[in-house]
């Protein structure tokens, strides 16, 4: 039922260990702060509300429809969670959604989970909140503020997450910024429109059925200047950094070389081709052959063990 992995969920192996750990730290700080704030906003209803809404976002991701050229619009959910629950609870909801996607469906890796939560949960929510609140203020309570805010929040959150993924890949030395940034940014500008339209449809439905759910946020405004500013800063930072990075990919590559020193420590064996390092290659080949033999022995031993065990069990039955 579950659709193909989405390009915003980075699998393990694509970010350097340093980048992964750095984003774990940032995520832990943001989620820790959200945890402290959320109790004040939602009270003891928080657990059932966040749990069921997280499940709804997860289930809502099954409702997709084709936009154009094989891309399909479907829910990432950060914007709608922000609109319905406020920024802090939305952050936790997205943290849970992204974690479960990684844990059960391997949609996104575990070591890079910190980065994935940060991209979709923390940044997606902060940017959504900034855009939604701003448009609502501008609209002064008029209905168009809700819908325009919802659409723009959705589009921006997707685009921001996508650009961040591109920059993370570039800093990890996996994909140069002048390729990754335009590719990710371009595709997600399209996907963002699809998701924005779904968000609009969902908001229109809720507005007709239960306007109180959407207006609740305005009646008890959550003190969110901090996250509003954070969202603005992120959106602004990405808007500046992405074109900069993609026009000067060498800058990030330099960072990648510094950050990825663990990777760089070891030169690739095929470097050693023709003239200058013949002795090295025999060494390398030998090690590989040995590893192959050892690996096969391990697998063979385990297979024997399992087969033996089964026979023993069958005999005892």
């Amino acid at each position, binding site marked *: *039922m579950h659709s193909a992995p989405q390009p915003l969920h980075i699998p393990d192996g694509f970010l350097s260990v340093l980048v992964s750990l750095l984003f774990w730290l940032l995520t832990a700080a943001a989620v820790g702060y959200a945890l402290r704030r959320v109790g004040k906003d939602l009270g003891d209803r928080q657990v059932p509300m966040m749990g069921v809404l997280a499940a709804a976002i997860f289930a809502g991701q099954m409702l997709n*429809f084709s936009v154009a050229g094989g891309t399909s*619009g479907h829910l990432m959910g950060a914007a709608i969670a922000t609109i319905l629950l406020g920024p802090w609870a939305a952050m936790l909801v997205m943290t849970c*959604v992204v974690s479960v996607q990684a844990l059960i469906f391997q949609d996104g890796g575990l070591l890079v989970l910190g980065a994935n939560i940060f991209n979709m949960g923390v940044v997606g929510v902060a940017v959504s909140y900034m855009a939604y609140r701003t448009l609502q203020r501008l609209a002064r309570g008029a209905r168009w503020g809700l819908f325009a805010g919802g659409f723009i929040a959705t589009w921006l959150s997707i685009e921001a997450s996508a650009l961040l993924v591109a920059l993370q890949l570039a800093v990890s030395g996996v*994909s140069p910024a002048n390729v990754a940034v335009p590719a990710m940014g371009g595709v997600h500008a399209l996907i963002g429109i699809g998701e924005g339209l*779904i968000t609009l449809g969902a908001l229109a439905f809720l507005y007709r059925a239960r306007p109180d759910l959407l207006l609740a946020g305005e009646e008890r405004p959550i003190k969110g200047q901090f996250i509003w500013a954070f969202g603005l800063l992120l959106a602004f930072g990405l808007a500046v950094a992405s074109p900069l990075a993609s026009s000067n990919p060498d800058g990030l590559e330099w960072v990648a070389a510094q950050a990825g020193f663990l990777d760089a420590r070891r030169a690739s*064996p095929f470097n050693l081709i023709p003239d200058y390092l013949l002795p090295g290659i025999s060494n390398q080949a030998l090690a590989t052959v040995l590893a192959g033999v050892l690996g096969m022995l*391990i697998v063979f031993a385990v297979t024997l063990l399992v087969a033996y065990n089964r026979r023993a069990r069958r005999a005892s039955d």
Partner: protein
Amino acid sequence: MHIHFLDPFQPRQSPIHQLDPRVKFVLALAFILTAALTPSGAWSAYILLFALAFSATILSDLGASYVLKRSALALPFVLSALPLIFTTEGASLLDLSIGAWSLTVTQPGLARFASLALKSWVSVQAGILLAVTTPFPDLLVAMRALGVPRLIVAVIGLMWRYLFVLADEALRLIRARLARSGDAANAELRTGGSLVWRARVAGGMAGSLFLRAFERSDRIYMAMLSRGYDGEARTLPLPRIRPLQWLTLGVGLGILALLLVLAYLI
């Protein structure tokens, strides 16, 4: 109508299934960390990592191909690393020119790309093994033991419980849409307005899903209150990890550390 296939867990009586979930969780994470730390081009280390993952698959009694098939899921993302083949400097293997463009495949580029793909692939296998051999409630236990905040664990538990219920509801909505749209196959042929219309339909379904979720959360909240819930996430103390499990953890971590050392030495 139930969505059982949302739950990847496959019940078996294998040694991997019987491993304490906390030990299994830590070993899977350590395995992925080891793969990530293994330098580029350390083919022998990759072979050994794969041998470990594959042995665990065999031990888990799931059939050798099961995990391999599922692990193909992560492959599309590999595309994002494709530029590495052309942009890494080094001895050139192959020149491709398409019109004015010229791309050079370099040897170190190809090696880095292959390393990355292999590392990612073995990591995904570890993740799959963890998910397939551990019932989700046990994963929650592992999360608690690893210090994930209680509130998050509680929300994830609720989320997992209602994932199935709401996914069933979403499926019913999708079926209702199919039943009402006679020529859904021709939907692509319609002009401009249809995209907005389709988005509206999908959005309306998402909206009704959220509405049901809200209403359900009210009822769950009442059910929780009725049983004394006071807003705090309370849990029973975790059972102790048995000595044999500690031993497994130690041996597993030892092997991985050894493998990492080898990867840098060879």
